[in-house]
């Protein structure tokens, strides 16, 4: 499946909507095992993405993804800013070669892993990106992929980011970055796949 720049625009606007609606919930999740700012961080960031996209004149997928990356990098801060930013920057680079959605998401995932030096099972957003990337490649991606990933992330013990400081207390909790990434992929289903 190919991703067009119009689709990408709709996808990111939809993501902004979901994050805005769930800002308090994301911060609550972060307060339990982190520092309680993931909701405000992502709301600020996706707001900036929305503004940036409104003024993108270059009608290319690469431009949409790159502007998204720049907006996230320069507005979010914290851990999630560089991570989401690196994901979209990697996707933008990959968009020079291909518009294949599964390849792009795979590139984004690699961007996150490279920037955060984390991997599957560390209880981070990677535990959402990885199953989604795999499912996309295998053609099995659906809402069920996201739901399952959220179930799977809960019992993990955090080994990266702030949540690693609470040790065993992180077991049983949802990871805020995995949840916000879940919104990203729900938006993808709604705007691109469905």
């Amino acid at each position: 499946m190919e991703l067009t720049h119009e689709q990408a625009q709709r996808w990111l606007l939809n993501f902004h909507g979901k994050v805005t609606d769930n800002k308090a919930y994301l911060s609550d999740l972060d307060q339990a095992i982190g520092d309680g700012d993931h909701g405000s961080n992502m709301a600020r960031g996706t707001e900036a993405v929305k503004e940036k996209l409104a003024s993108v004149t270059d009608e290319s997928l690469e431009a949409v993804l790159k502007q998204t990356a720049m907006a996230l990098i320069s507005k979010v801060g914290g851990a999630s800013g560089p991570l989401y930013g690196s994901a979209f920057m990697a996707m933008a680079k990959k968009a020079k070669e291909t518009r294949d959605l599964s390849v792009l998401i795979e590139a984004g995932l690699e961007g996150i892993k490279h920037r955060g030096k984390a991997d599957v099972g560390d209880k981070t957003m990677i535990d959402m990106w990885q199953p989604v990337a795999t499912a996309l490649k295998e053609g099995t991606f659906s809402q069920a992929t996201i739901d399952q990933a959220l179930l799977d992330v809960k019992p993990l013990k955090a080994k990266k980011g702030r949540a690693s400081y609470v040790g065993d207390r992180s077991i049983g909790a949802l990871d805020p970055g995995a949840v916000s990434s879940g919104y990203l992929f729900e938006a993808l289903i709604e705007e691109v796949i469905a």
Partner: protein
Amino acid sequence: MKKIINEPHLVVDDLLEGMLLAHSDLLTRIEDTRVVIEKEKQATVGLVSGGGSGHEPAHAGFVGDGMLRAAVLGEMFTSPTPDQIYEAIKASDTGKGVLLIVKNYTGDVMNFDMAKEMAEMEDIEVESILVDDDIAVEDSTYTAGKRGVAGTILVHKILGHFAREGKTLAELKQLGDALIHHIDTLGVALTGATVPEVGKPGFTLEANEMEYGVGIHGEPGYRRSELKQSHQIAKELVTKLMETRKETKKIGLLVNGLGATPIQELYVFYRDVVNELKAYDVEITFQKIGDFMTSIDMAGLSLTVIDLDDETYKEALTSPVDVLSW
């Protein structure tokens, strides 16, 4: 949440504005950024630090001759973004390069790294020091490593002194990497910290509870306990901090209030620390007591121990500086 503020999301802008209005003789702001920079730059390596806001007077209170060249203020408890850090680097370089002093938090590390990459693309020489003085956290493959907390201020002071003395970027990097192994910190909290936009404390302690080993962003610590007396807290902290110091003969102490702790309690605690240290064969050759690296409105304090057998550290800590809050 009881605070003397305006809209919660404006606190960082408002406090920054207040700081610059008050101290325009010493400090200025890089336009359109939240970077505070000294007005008069010497032609030395520029030290740049920063992080989330909420740790006032850190870091802007340490900008000035003999300490930092610039401080980058992020949102409350949220590391600043790479573009802001990059602006600070650019403005701090006088051709001698820039040294970043970063507290070890995933977000800070990544944002400062990205800024470093951006600056290197512009051919600015940049090195960074990662401060991880908080021994409350285990440094293992199962954590993001020890955190950077109040000891960072001592790094600012010591490296700031050496930068003023004319040391090169490479020398400062080497000095800094050696220095951080000599600084350890442990903190305790009586209350959580309330991020203005969140409106409720990061964790809640009962009236008779305290928490050992908290971070400076309201991260919980290693043990919750019933409220102890000052001398008992001093005993636990001193014991843990001195464990690795069998050979040390001279130390410096930093008793740091976390935001809502009255100075009187810091002095009571300092007394108990000195008392506890009598059981060890060390001499206290430097001390500092006050609010340096706070956690918004948290009630609590941290104790930092620095090895001072190296006389140059002591000299660096005691040389005069022209900053707001040292």
